[in-house]
């Protein structure tokens, strides 16, 4: 190798030059005619340093990724490495359950994508719980999940989730995991535990200190404070509709309990949470929104559930997991009935999950956290598309 030679992989051609990615930097190198993107090359003559703007080639729109996107993909790789390190250091086993299943989640507001004679998972929850019942105590999984019809600045139909469970543990342990994981991943990418949130494309990002511990709000306090709505959890839908209307939020007469709740939540609480300069653990959800959470001991109106919000991004949802098979079957049947009544596809109940619960799921807590959203927070991306290798519209 001659003195001053620069070795690396060709990222792009720029006329008689090539942008070459070396071990520690990208340089503009005088190119031989045969060099193509992806080739490993060695160039003698460094013409001038690459200025960090968009790569000039490949020439077609389809083949080109912006410099910003390439940087985000590097950040994504750094984040994934930090995430796996985090779990390895805490004795979690990485598992990898199937994404093609006969029974996807039955949650009323999640629609599954059909695939062959089954469905793609909306979350790996059911299979991971079977592993807990089988005796694995601390497990995590990073996987693709699929939710039909979800598309927006924070939503893509196909997205990446990290889900983890702790057997013989409390929801409080998951709060601490979440705070520490977010702080570590953001630090790995950004150099400090400071997340960045871009509210609108083109605006400068806001900084949010994500170092633990995070402020906590109960759902009822948040609804009272910002929406002016008292939520009991066991009131009839009509009563909640009246309270929401009294607060000046328009909802129709026949609105269901959950829709009335979220109408008020989205109109008032969500914007207020978004404006805070710290993350929030929003906990103690009213029981109609318990999903797969058990209720708080001695308080049947409150579910052991929390969500983590950072700068308007709903990052994670956690449960003190329901372990009672009879209660689980009753909730599934209720979900099926509601789906049928609202004209939604009705998925089969996962009997093997119920059997696993009957065999004995240890007391446990678990959480699902949106990886793409975490990377948005670490990089200041304004939309999920900016942290994906290819957004749905680019396929």
């Amino acid at each position: 190798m001659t003195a001053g030679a620069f070795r690396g992989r060709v990222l792009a051609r720029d006329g008689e030059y090539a942008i070459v990615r070396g071990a520690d930097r990208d340089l503009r190198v005088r190119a031989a005619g045969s060099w193509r993107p992806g080739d490993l090359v060695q160039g003698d003559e460094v013409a001038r340093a690459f200025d960090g703007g968009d790569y000039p080639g490949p020439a077609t729109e389809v083949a080109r990724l912006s410099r910003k996107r390439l940087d985000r993909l590097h950040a994504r790789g750094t984040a994934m490495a930090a995430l796996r390190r985090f779990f390895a250091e805490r004795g979690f086993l990485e598992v990898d359950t199937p994404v093609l299943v006969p029974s996807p989640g039955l949650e009323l507001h999640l629609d599954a994508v059909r695939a062959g004679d089954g469905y793609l998972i909306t979350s790996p929850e059911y299979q991971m719980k079977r592993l807990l019942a089988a005796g694995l105590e601390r497990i995590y999984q990073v996987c693709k999940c699929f939710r039909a019809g979800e598309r927006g600045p924070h939503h893509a139909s196909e997205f990446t989730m990290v889900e983890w469970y702790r057997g013989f543990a409390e929801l409080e342990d998951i709060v601490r995991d979440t705070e520490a994981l977010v702080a570590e991943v953001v630090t790995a990418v950004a150099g400090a535990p400071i997340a960045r949130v871009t509210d609108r494309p083109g605006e400068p990002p806001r900084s949010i200190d994500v170092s633990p511990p995070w402020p906590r709000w109960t759902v009822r306090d948040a609804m009272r404070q910002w929406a002016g709505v008292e939520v009991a959890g066991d009131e009839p839908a009509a009563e909640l509709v009246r309270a929401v209307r009294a607060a000046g939020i328009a909802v129709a007469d026949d609105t269901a309990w959950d829709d009335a709740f979220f109408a008020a939540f989205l109109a008032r609480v969500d914007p207020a949470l978004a404006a805070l300069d710290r993350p929030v653990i929003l906990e103690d959800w009213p029981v109609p929104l318990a999903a797969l959470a058990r209720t708080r001991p001695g308080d049947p109106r409150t579910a052991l559930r929390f969500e983590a919000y950072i700068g308007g991004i709903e990052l994670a949802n956690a449960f003190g997991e329901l372990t009672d098979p009879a209660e689980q079957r009753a909730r599934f049947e209720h979900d099926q009935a509601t789906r049928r009544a609202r004209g939604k596809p009705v998925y089969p109940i996962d009997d093997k999950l119920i059997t696993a619960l009957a065999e004995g799921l240890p007391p446990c807590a678990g959480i699902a956290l949106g990886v793409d959203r975490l990377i948005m927070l670490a990089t200041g991306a304004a939309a999920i598309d900016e942290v994906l290798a290819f957004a749905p519209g680019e396929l």
Partner: protein
Amino acid sequence: MYDTSDIRKGLKVLMDGNPYTVIEFQFVKPGKGAAFTRTKFKNLLTGAVVERNIRSGEKLEPANVETRDMQFLYKEGGDLVFMDQSNYEQVTISADLIGPAHDLMKDNLPCTVVFFNERPVDVTLPTFVFLEVTASEPGVRGDTSGNVTKPATVETGASVNVPLFIRIGDTIKIDTRTHEYVERVNK
């Protein structure tokens, strides 16, 4: 009826009897809740902006709103007469609806008129008009510093504040949104 999948910028809908146009929208979905479209609407009558979260499955009523390209013909008392350039139909619109810019309108000016239930509810003028100055006192010599202006009358009869160097016969560019002088146009 429209549903949330029809929502796009410029969609005209009827809410509480008023016509609105969509100016911004975004898909939002709480993890355990229904999908909503967070939508900003502008009231076509008052210009007021409201935000509403429309749940998927909710219906929106289309507003009978139509936008037509029309030409200003002439004034008739406090009214202005316009002609639809596609079918030569004439419509009389009150000067009040147009607001302060009504006295900047010269014959044949192309405008956009919004109709709600066949009734004109909004007139949009070109952002700039070019008008000749018909009357103005000469500027006082030496007094050329800063933003000193003087009143001038233009060919439509409107009064506009202009810099001191503007003379009778000059053509000036005026912003119809602010009723303000922009620049002198050399002819």
